[in-house]
């Protein structure tokens, strides 16, 4: 143990406590930032004491998949340590570990405890060699905040380096439907477990914003016999015969249920049955399939998976429901074209047009480049009433003008402040009764909106909601 560990842990705890005290946040990242800065081997040293570590990475679905995998482990009576607030850089891991260590850095009951951790794409690449996960889950790879993450091919290359250094007895769990993921996962020296969706896609061409169009191995022409969405689907290279591997855990008979849930058949090597879940959309079906595959790879019993998955609630900000006086708000995080387009499809599957507020911020955590909204097919949106807000509300209004969603831009309230935008959206029309409001928001806009709702007593703060 480094001699300064007790001091680092104490400093971290104090910083986290101060952050909560001053109401600057949940203290989730601050305590970890301080600890890992003072004690760089804190995270790997702590994780090494535990039973095992499972990592979850990918562009979309990390928080939901991590929460579902934790629920499966807990249902099987296994104690879990996790980073539930979506704080998925090294500092987030340190913050999640801090409450579990004593003053000399020892974790109590360590050998029974599993760490189930979501990791940012680049944090996974840099941390995997030292934290040595027993199971590494790879969800998908889409373009996302290119000013922060860089080009998609570079992320894939970084994953490949990390996978090459995984222990041979670690299991890689990978999305069979994502050629970019399979191209790196297949090189793992140990076992690879695949999950996928056998659903009838309406198209055989990847969407315009898809990131894989040609074979990731040889640049040959990839041929899809169906596309689920973006570049996910069933594919085969016409030159080198790279193709979608047969999934071990798969979804079939998918039935959408609007924003409130979905049902489908979930097939694993040792089970087969229909489930009805509270998570909407095909993208969440992938997340739950990944969680079940992750549990299987980690030796977590999934006999009771059906009950656990059917009662599982969405993570904060992910189709989360907030009750305001007279209005039910559904809050949907959108942060990249694939996620946003999937969300728009969900809204379209609702039986009637809904009041919709879209919030666009350009903070570091949102992506400072707002260009991506031109890859979002707002043309698909058919709202009853549409308002826009956030720091780049004007860019959003312009995008919607060119999408021809509203007759004139004057009908969009362009309002940079989150609170005033929410108030305008909530202001009910004369005579209207209880109603619903859909809010699509980028990451910091989602946190800002939740903070407004928390101040008004409508919802718990995110660090408590996630706990």
């Amino acid at each position: 143990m480094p001699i300064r560990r007790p001091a680092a842990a104490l400093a971290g705890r104090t910083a986290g406590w101060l952050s909560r005290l001053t109401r600057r946040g949940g203290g989730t990242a601050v305590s970890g930032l301080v600890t890992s800065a003072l004690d760089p081997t804190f995270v790997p040293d702590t994780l090494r004491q535990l039973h095992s570590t499972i990592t979850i990475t990918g562009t979309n679905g990390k928080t939901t998949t991590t929460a579902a995998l934790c629920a499966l482990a807990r249902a099987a009576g296994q104690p879990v340590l996790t980073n539930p607030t979506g704080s998925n850089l090294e500092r987030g891991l340190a913050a999640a570990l801090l409450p579990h260590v004593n003053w000399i850095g020892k974790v109590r009951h360590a050998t029974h405890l599993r760490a189930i951790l979501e990791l940012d794409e680049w944090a996974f690449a840099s941390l995997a060699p030292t934290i040595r996960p027993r199971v590494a889950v790879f969800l998908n790879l889409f373009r996302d905040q290119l000013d922060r993450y860089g080009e998609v091919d570079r992320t894939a290359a970084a994953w490949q380096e990390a996978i090459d250094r995984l222990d041979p007895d670690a299991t890689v769990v990978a999305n069979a439907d994502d050629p970019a993921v399979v191209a790196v996962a297949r090189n793992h020296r140990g076992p690879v477990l695949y999950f996928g969706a056998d659903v009838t896609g309406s198209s055989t061409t990847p969407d315009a914003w898809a990131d894989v169009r040609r074979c990731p191995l040889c640049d040959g022409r990839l041929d899809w016999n169906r596309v689920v969405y973006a570049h996910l689907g069933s594919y085969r290279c016409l030159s080198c015969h790279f193709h979608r591997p047969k999934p071990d855990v798969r979804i079939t008979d998918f039935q959408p249920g609007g924003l409130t849930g979905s049902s489908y058949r979930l097939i694993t090597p040792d089970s087969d049955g229909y489930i009805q879940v509270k998570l909407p959309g095909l993208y969440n079906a992938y997340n739950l399939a990944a969680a079940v595959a992750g549990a299987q790879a980690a030796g977590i019993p999934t006999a009771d998976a059906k009950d656990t998955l059917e009662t599982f609630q969405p993570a904060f900000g992910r189709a989360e429901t907030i009750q305001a006086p007279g209005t039910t708000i559904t809050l949907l995080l959108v942060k990249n074209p694939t996620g946003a387009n999937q969300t728009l499809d969900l809204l379209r599957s609702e039986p009637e047009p809904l009041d919709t507020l879209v919030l666009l911020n350009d903070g570091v955590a949102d992506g400072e480049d707002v260009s991506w909204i031109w890859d979002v097919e707002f043309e698909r949106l058919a709202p009853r009433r549409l308002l826009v807000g956030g720091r780049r509300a004007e860019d959003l209004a312009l995008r919607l003008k060119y999408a021809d969603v509203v007759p004139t831009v004057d009908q969009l309230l362009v309002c940079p402040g989150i609170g005033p935008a929410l108030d305008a959206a909530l202001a009910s029309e004369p005579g209207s009764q209880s109603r619903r409001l859909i809010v699509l928001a980028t990451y910091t806009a989602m946190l800002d909106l939740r903070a407004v709702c928390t101040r008004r007593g409508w919802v718990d703060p995110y660090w408590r909601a996630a706990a």
Partner: protein
Amino acid sequence: MTASGPVLRIAYLYPDLMNLYADRGNVTCLERRCAWRGITPEIQRLEWNDRLVEAADLYVIGGGQDRQQQLASQGLTTRNADRILSDLADGAAMLAVCGGYQLMAHRYRAADGSEVQGLGVFDAETIHPGSHVPRCIGNVVCDWNESRIVGFENHGGRTYLGPDATPLAQVVRGHGNNAEDGTEGAVAGNAIGTYLHGSVLPKNPHLADHIIKAALVRSAPEFELGPLDDSAEWAAHRGALRAAGLR
């Protein structure tokens, strides 16, 4: 408005390879601004193995990753160089953004040292100094034609203009071509190269109309571009100025 005006033939080069930063917003913008004025936009989307047969009034290409750029370069130089260069020599217009801009200059030396051949529309070349050197990322504001253009840049390569190239604009905020000489983009005849995403045209309606006018010069020189209500465009333009720390 009725479609009594001229036809504008737009060749959109390799949208499947060169749309990393949603530069397809430029095509959406051109399409709508033409239609609003009774111009009929005819858009041809070129795939990697396609060969352009018919002439175009306007070529559009966006940015992509190194590997996709390599493929686009093959498609351009082996199948379509003659068509594009002869149309441009004849006065056709072009908007080439980021990776597309690099491909329209002489050559691009990628981070791994490999060279990608360009079409040489612009007398310029691009060198990627290596992946250890920070990329040029951030909001950009430039002086252009006695006004301003705004956007967002994200490029590893540094572009250096040769003696026969004219810069498109002068950098007020951001890096531009190479973060050294204060230039941004290049102009050659009616062709424009730039590093600006955003997408660049929707929030710079004066640049969009400048390009539409240039593209119509041969087929409909008399056609007047009527004014549009651009209040939403200029509001987004001001939003981008604010994001760059300017008013």
